[in-house]
């Protein structure tokens, strides 16, 4: 195996100017400009072999896109070397160079030139591009009359018809509707089959595990993990967990306190990720520091990207706790989980019935994971009972 891309000890420093002087006068008058150094990348090294599919993952601001730009040659490394063998196409933006006054046809040729296709090569794939974008009737129309969806389609159609040895893809490509995304993914698989080297920046960890040969996780510009996608993704999930724990918020007047909570499946505490359809119980232990009348205990579930999924409380379930003095245990039995994958966060709270007093809230303090059975592609879980009868 020969290396298609070799990143050796690459660091990238940006100078952050409080106010960037863009005129001579400012630069002269300001004297010493106050600039702060910001290291977007620190001593990053890895190799991508020919035909390998590498994913770059990490938080926002971890330096993924900067690294991609350094590899693409848009940014110059402050230290280190990047070596590349083969023609590179950087798909960092859809429809680079599109101009609204030009027709779809003209824009295809312009954009293809930026993606490294010659006029002849573009002519050869032109019909494919048009049919891929499904814009046959609009190619002679100026793109200023296109809808944004049409523009995206045209930009993507151009992007997937490039034929370089190395393809750099930023997640900006993750646009469009489901069907379109599926086609994008399909195309990426084709690239993979054709033995092209791919570097992908993404947040979609499951995708990384499905498709990639190698993954690199960046954290504040430093390589935190590198190697098998499964291992790196696990590391990434661990970091997300730790990261969020630091921000776990607690508040409340503490007349009633949440002593602790446990997530159970059946009667057993959760140790492994749940399978879709396994039951989940949230068990909350309370302690009243002062006697309180009729408190309400509530819970909420959020998914990994902080979307509210489901919530409930004792009052809605028609349960009255009465006067609370001393300790009490509340158990929410949620039945089979309908989720098919991902990490979920549990928020717990105790408050007065009229919601005027919040005694204690633990914001997304607890979490559980659901993992799809290998080979299944369900979007949700449904309890199914089958009956067969003679007719």
């Amino acid at each position, binding site marked *: 195996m020969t290396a298609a891309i070799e990143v*050796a*000890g690459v660091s990238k420093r*940006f100078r952050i100017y409080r106010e960037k002087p*863009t*005129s*001579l*006068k400012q*630069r002269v008058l300001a004297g010493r400009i106050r600039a702060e150094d910001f290291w977007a990348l620190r001593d990053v090294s890895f190799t991508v072999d020919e035909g390998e599919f590498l994913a770059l993952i990490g938080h926002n601001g971890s330096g993924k896109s900067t690294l991609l*730009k*350094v590899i*693409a*040659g*848009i*940014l*110059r*490394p*402050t*230290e*280190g*070397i*990047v*070596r*590349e*063998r*083969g*023609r*590179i196409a*950087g798909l*960092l*933006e859809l429809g*680079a*160079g599109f*101009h609204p*006054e*030009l027709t779809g046809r*003209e824009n295809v*040729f*312009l954009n293809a*030139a*930026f993606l490294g*296709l*010659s*006029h002849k090569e573009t002519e050869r794939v032109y019909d494919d591009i048009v049919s891929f974008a499904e814009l046959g009737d609009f190619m002679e129309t*100026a793109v200023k009359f296109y809808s944004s969806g049409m523009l995206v389609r045209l930009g993507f159609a151009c992007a997937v018809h490039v034929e370089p*040895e190395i393809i750099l893809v930023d997640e900006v490509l993750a646009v469009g509707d489901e069907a379109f995304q599926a086609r994008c993914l399909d195309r990426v698989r084709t690239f993979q089959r054709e033995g092209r080297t791919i570097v992908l920046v993404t947040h979609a960890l499951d995708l990384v595990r499905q498709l990639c040969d190698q993954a690199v996780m960046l954290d504040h510009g430093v390589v935190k993990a590198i190697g098998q996608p499964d291992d790196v993704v696990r590391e990434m999930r661990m970091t997300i967990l730790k990261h969020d724990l630091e921000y776990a918020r607690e508040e409340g007047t503490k007349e009633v306190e949440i002593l602790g909570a446990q997530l159970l499946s059946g009667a057993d505490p959760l140790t492994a990720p749940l399978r879709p359809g396994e039951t989940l119980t949230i068990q909350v232990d309370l302690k009243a520091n002062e006697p309180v009348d009729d408190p309400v205990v509530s819970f909420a579930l959020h998914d990994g990207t902080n979307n509210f999924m489901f919530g409930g409380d004792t009052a809605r379930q028609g349960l009255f706790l009465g006067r609370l003095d001393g300790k009490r245990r509340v158990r929410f039995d949620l039945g089979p989980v309908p989720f098919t994958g991902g990490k979920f966060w549990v928020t717990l709270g105790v408050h007065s019935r009229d919601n005027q007093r919040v005694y204690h809230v633990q914001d997304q303090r607890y979490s559980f994971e659901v993992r799809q059975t290998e080979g299944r592609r369900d979007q949700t879980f449904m309890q199914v009972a089958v009956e067969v009868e003679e007719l």
Partner: protein
Amino acid sequence: MLDSRGLRVDTRSRLRSFAIATPIGFTERTSEPPRLRVRQRARELYGYREILLNLIRKELKVKYTASVLGAVWSLLNPIVFLAVFTFVVKVLNNDMEDFPFFLLGGLLAWNLFSVSLNAGAQSVISNANLVKKVYFPREILPLATVGVALVDFVLQSALFFVIMVVLGYGFRIELLWLYPMSFVALLLFTVAVTFWVSAMNVRYRDVQHLIGLALLVWFWMTPIVYPAGVVYRSLLTYTHGQLFWRLYLLNPVAWIVFGFQKALYHSARADYFLAPFTLGQLAVGLGIVIVAATVLLYLTWRVFFSLSGDFAEEL
């Protein structure tokens, strides 16, 4: 050869592999501000000619679509200019014969120069989106603006030549060889200055304002609307006239314009109006301009090249 990290870089084998397999290039990006290797870079630029041609095509289309007259606008500019100055010259009671042919000879060349500089100053900034998202040799951007100006120049010149023939003014074959020489000098000098202007404007936006003023002064320091011969003789009546005339001749565009005018303007009293130089002197002068412009081009290209690595950050 050692790179910044002390690793041995085999330059020769790299060049060889580059030369043999064109599609499979070997690229290396380091922290060093890149040093310009003219041949290698020129070859790379040639590899990206598709972008250059497409950008020029785009500029032209955008400039002239959605306008009723289209490319006629490009021809209208010198015609209006000509009308105004013919009028002014008549009012000033100048007795210069065939003034339009004198004026257009220098004006079209000047337009190529000034349009390139004005647009060139903006070329990197106005394409910030591309520079930040796509890799290509950044020289393409200022080159495209020169290219657009060049297309206008060719169109205007073609029309100008047709008019010269139709009106029976015609050409003098023995003078015409100065034309390509002047053109080469003009193109080299224009590209050189445009490289510098476009690179500097990324860091100091003052440049684009400065260019407007500088071009105004420059225009009047160049014998386009007035004949150089007349300037020469009137300068001689002053005490330090010779000195001022020498200073005047330091302007390379003046020499380029001398060349164009000498090649095209051949009325009876041409020698009285044109710069007081023989053909040989003009050829030597233009030769010096060509050499100087080539050196300047190398220097500004180097500046552009080393600054261009940081364009994506500076924008």
